């Protein structure tokens, strides 16, 4: 007992500033309780935590990537946005999502055969001029072939330029329970087969062009590796064809599912796409630039701009909504729920508490998922070998390598994981905050501020910083409605809306003035 107490005192002494700030935040929260009704206070805290959870998902991935690889991934916000849009597509238009699986699998098959292309190219002797020009010519040709073939493959798409066929209308229709399965353009089997073959060739050509860039530097692939690559590519291509053949039953199956299940599939698809995109990005774009940090900044910034333009082209510029899954959308009898039993029985969208209504998705579900991820990643970092390597690598990559560990392989995993967390944040934020092409930038800014507050490479710092930013914003919004009674002022002060984004920056300035390395940062 006594020893425990001493241990606690030591901890407090060592982390005096952190303890003081924690106490200050608690005092401020208690003070706020005096200034508004209990219900208002609870809902503001919950909203703050929910915003904090989304910011945390982006910030945690960003900080893992920066900590281990020193890469400032400025495209992280754009990737967060991709999570939203991919999730939206799988959720609202699963027919389109299934239609695009086949072209994607065929493209991937071409890249899966990469070792074969490398081996093939190694046998051809190329002059240096050809070697320099061929990859670009190959990529251009592959792109043209892909565009030609993919537009002939039947995809039931929307049209952002026509209101009746725009994403907004499909979302509204789904929300009101009337789902229309859009008809895919009808094509005969021969056209479909030809377009699939075209996509497969385009993917192979693109992969071969990429393989040519590193021509002569790659070590020779072993026979076993080649066989595995061949099987992988073949499996991808065949499953692409299988999805084409089973397209209609699959679509019907998904439309018959409850929206809760569909939402789960959407979340899984968003996370998987983030994981895949992150891995691909590290392997192709980031890896050649580890020694050139400025180029990385320019690359990721440019990528963010490009992703945003692609998103606008595909989904259109206006904000689109994502209906809430059935589990959190109940409004009929027994709603708003008075207690937990009611809530579970009627799957209410809101629950009554202290005179206000708490929205189950926005103010409870997001926080719960955020907490689960917080704990899961913490366990991964603390309890697994790969987590141990990440923690060690954040401090001293060279020493980890000198122990015989290939850190580069861990890099790809961490990049994929970080982007996967961002896309998870994106798909979760969709039903709560709405989806628009500027959501990525504003969230990346919040995440960067949260990291500056918490300490750039500290995992608990990312969580605490994100929650502080979320709470501060939501309290300022609330005070804008109810007013805050400050001493020496006759009338309550109502902070104006522009103060909401400014407050996060101000908080960062204050924290950094007191603690230049952030709350949990380390002096470097």
């Amino acid at each position, binding site marked *: 007992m006594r020893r425990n107490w001493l241990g606690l005192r030591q901890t407090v002494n060592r982390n005096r500033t952190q303890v003081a700030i924690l106490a200050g935040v608690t005092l401020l929260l208690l003070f706020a309780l005096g200034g508004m009704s209990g219900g208002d206070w609870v809902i503001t805290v919950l909203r703050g935590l929910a915003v904090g959870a989304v910011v945390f998902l982006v910030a945690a991935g960003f900080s893992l990537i920066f900590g281990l690889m020193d890469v400032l991934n400025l495209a992280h916000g754009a990737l967060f946005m991709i999570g939203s849009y991919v999730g939206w597509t799988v959720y609202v238009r699963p027919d389109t999502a299934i239609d695009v699986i086949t072209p994607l699998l065929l493209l991937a098959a071409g890249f899966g055969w990469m070792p074969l292309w490398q081996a093939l190219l190694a046998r051809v002797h190329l002059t240096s001029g050809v070697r320099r020009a061929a990859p670009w010519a190959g990529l251009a040709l592959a792109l043209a072939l892909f565009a030609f073939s993919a537009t002939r493959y039947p995809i039931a798409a929307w049209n952002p330029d026509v209101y009746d066929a725009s994403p907004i209308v499909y979302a509204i229709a789904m929300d009101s329970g009337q789902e229309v399965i859009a008809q895919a353009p009808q094509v005969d089997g021969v056209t479909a087969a030809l377009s699939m073959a075209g996509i497969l060739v385009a993917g192979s050509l693109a992969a071969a062009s990429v393989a040519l860039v590193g021509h002569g530097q790659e070590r020779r692939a072993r026979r076993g590796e080649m066989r595995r690559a061949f099987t992988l590519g073949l499996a991808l291509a065949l499953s692409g064809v299988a999805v084409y053949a089973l397209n209609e039953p699959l679509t019907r199956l998904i439309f018959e599912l409850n929206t809760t299940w569909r939402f789960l599939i959407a979340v899984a698809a968003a996370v998987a796409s983030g994981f895949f995109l992150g891995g691909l990005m590290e392997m192709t774009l980031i890896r050649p630039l580890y020694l050139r940090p400025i180029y990385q900044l320019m690359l990721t910034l440019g990528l963010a701009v490009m992703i945003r333009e692609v998103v606008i082209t595909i989904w259109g510029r206006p904000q689109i909504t994502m209906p809430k899954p059935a589990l959190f959308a109940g409004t009929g009898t027994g709603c708003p729920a008075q207690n937990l039993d009611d809530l579970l029985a009627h799957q209410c969208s809101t629950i009554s508490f202290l005179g206000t209504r708490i929205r189950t998705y926005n103010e409870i579900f997001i926080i719960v998922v955020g907490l689960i991820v917080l704990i899961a990643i913490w366990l991964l970092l603390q309890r697994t070998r790969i987590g141990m390597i990440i923690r060690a690598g954040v401090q001293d990559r060279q020493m980890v*390598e*000198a*122990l015989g*560990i290939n*850190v580069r392989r861990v890099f790809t995993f961490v990049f994929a994981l970080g982007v996967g967390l961002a896309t998870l944040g994106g798909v979760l934020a969709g039903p709560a905050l709405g989806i628009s092409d500027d959501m990525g930038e504003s969230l990346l800014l919040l995440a960067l501020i949260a990291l500056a507050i918490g300490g750039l490479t500290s995992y608990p710092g990312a969580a605490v910083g994100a929650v502080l930013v979320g709470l501060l914003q939501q309290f300022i919004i609330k005070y804008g409605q109810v007013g805050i009674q400050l001493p020496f002022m006759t009338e309550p002060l109502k902070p104006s809306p522009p103060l909401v984004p400014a407050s996060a920056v101000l908080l960062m300035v204050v924290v950094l003035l007191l603690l230049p390395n952030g709350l949990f940062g380390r002096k470097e």
Partner: protein
Amino acid sequence: MTPYNRHSMNNLLEVLDVHTSIGQFHILEGVTVNVPRGSITALLGRNGAGKTTTLKTIMGLTPPRRGQVLFDGQPIHAQHTFDIAAQGIGFVPDYRAIFRDLTVAENLQIAERKAGDLARKGELIFQLFPDLKRLIHLRGNQLSGGQQQMLAIARALVADNQLLLIDEPSEGLAPIIVEQLMEAIVQLSAATTIVLVEQNFAVASQLAKHYVILEEGRSVRNGLMTDLVHDHATIQRYLGVM
């Protein structure tokens, strides 16, 4: 025979006329070090002579621009650091590089190359450094300098390493701890070949059987330590001691 072919089976490691640049600075300008199996070879020389860079070049952390590094007869100078280490080379850098967010136990676990490495080597490690057993749950940043040095050497022992590169183990440590470390290194040298960088000539001369003297990035003298201790002129000229 050309100098590049004179590999002798008695040498576990051969550094042959290595040149290394860091940025635009030419740090090593011709270093040759032969490390015979089963003994301690000391790299001697003044500050900035290139001793640490030689070790880093062997590890592939600063790859050589010219020259060869042969480990067990095989060239390793073009390989990645992790491949070099995995062939059986343990590295104890001068700044110790203890992972401060990892506990002592984790600092040892991370060095495992095969499952069960630590279980097999634990007895040896804790017999050499009994203190570590007591500190096993502390974090790296809670250890004293001497404890960190012991952990850094222990970490290099977890995997099956044939060669240990130890950089300045006695730097900044109290004499009693230096003695403890020296004892441990002597014990280790019975089974493992060691390359030792040591500023303290008294320490180096007691431990090492062979020596190589570096000056301004070149290897200038080598031989048996028993000969060097009597060669006051050489010691005076290159090491500036005694």
